């Protein structure tokens, strides 16, 4: 008799509806790179160079929001430079929550860029600050706020259905 029951949770990987798992360290390394860029945006303050750099960060989120974090240049750097130096990951992770987190990053930084282009340069370091908080938490302690939002959102959608 087994004493551990999974009542009806999806199998971790391999079933038809389930996308292939990703190395969970990839998004964290990517978040570290992004956090460093966002720190520079904050340092630059409400200026045009800050707006340009924030636009670069926002554009970097775009492929991640569409295809997942592995499609970003940060994900590419992880695969090429970091992953060969690491052992195999202990386990893989569902790519959907981190992909949603990339979308959240795109929206937050995108709002800063749009406001900055509209002349509200003060919004640039603020948007960068919010995004920095999320990216740095993900990189340092593995708290992915966007992923948590995705899990909560799925549950709410299920509750309403």
């Amino acid at each position, binding site marked *: 008799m087994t*004493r551990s*029951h999974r009542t*009806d*949770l999806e199998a971790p990987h391999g079933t038809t509806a389930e996308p292939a798992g990703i190395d969970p360290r990839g998004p964290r390394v990517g978040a570290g790179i992004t956090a460093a860029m966002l*720190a520079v945006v904050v340092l630059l303050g409400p200026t045009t160079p800050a707006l340009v750099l924030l636009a670069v960060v926002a554009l970097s989120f775009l492929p991640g929001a569409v295809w997942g974090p592995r499609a970003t240049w940060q994900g590419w750097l992880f695969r090429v430079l970091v992953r060969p130096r690491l052992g195999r990951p202990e386990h893989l992770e569902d790519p959907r929550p981190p992909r949603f987190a990339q979308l959240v990053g795109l929206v937050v930084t995108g709002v800063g860029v749009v406001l900055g282009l509209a002349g509200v340069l003060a919004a640039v370091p603020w948007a960068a600050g919010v995004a920095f908080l999320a990216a*740095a938490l993900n990189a340092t302690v593995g708290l992915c706020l966007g992923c948590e939002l995705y899990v909560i959102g*799925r*549950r709410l959608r299920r509750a309403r259905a």
Partner: protein
Amino acid sequence: MQTDMFPPGEHQPVSTRGVQMSAQWPALVALVVLTVVVALVWRRGQGRLRRPDGGSSGRGAAPDRWAADLDALGAAAGARATFLQFSAPVCAPCRATARVLAALAAEAPGVVHVEVDVETHLDLSLRAGVLRTPTVLVLDAAGAEVARASGAMTPAQARAALDAVTPIDQPSGRNA
């Protein structure tokens, strides 16, 4: 929120050799301090065991019993303890916690691990007041909640949770 944290008025003279700006060090330092505080608070709460409120006096409501629900889920309560884990299918810390608790259930006698999907068992998660995943309810032999923990649990935390159910060695329990 104060917007003058980043004063836009201070236009520094732009030289031809590059942009001269007053770097916003105070803003970045404040941001890093905030990040560190949030990170520490969050990490401290991960998998931390909480007793149900009430306790000594006041509300003192009888702890919710889950024995019937365990039956309905096709799982019998453990003779010593049951870890009733509420999980979401896509939540990575849920998978990690499930591995930890399944390993503990496999090795400790009388300990059962039951994992419930919050998306399909909305009624149960509502009754348990589960907001975050994973949330683990630690149940005694009668199926009553003794404590709970939210967030990823380490093996040490899972073991401590087991001790919370049976603080003194029970006749049924063997020392590992």
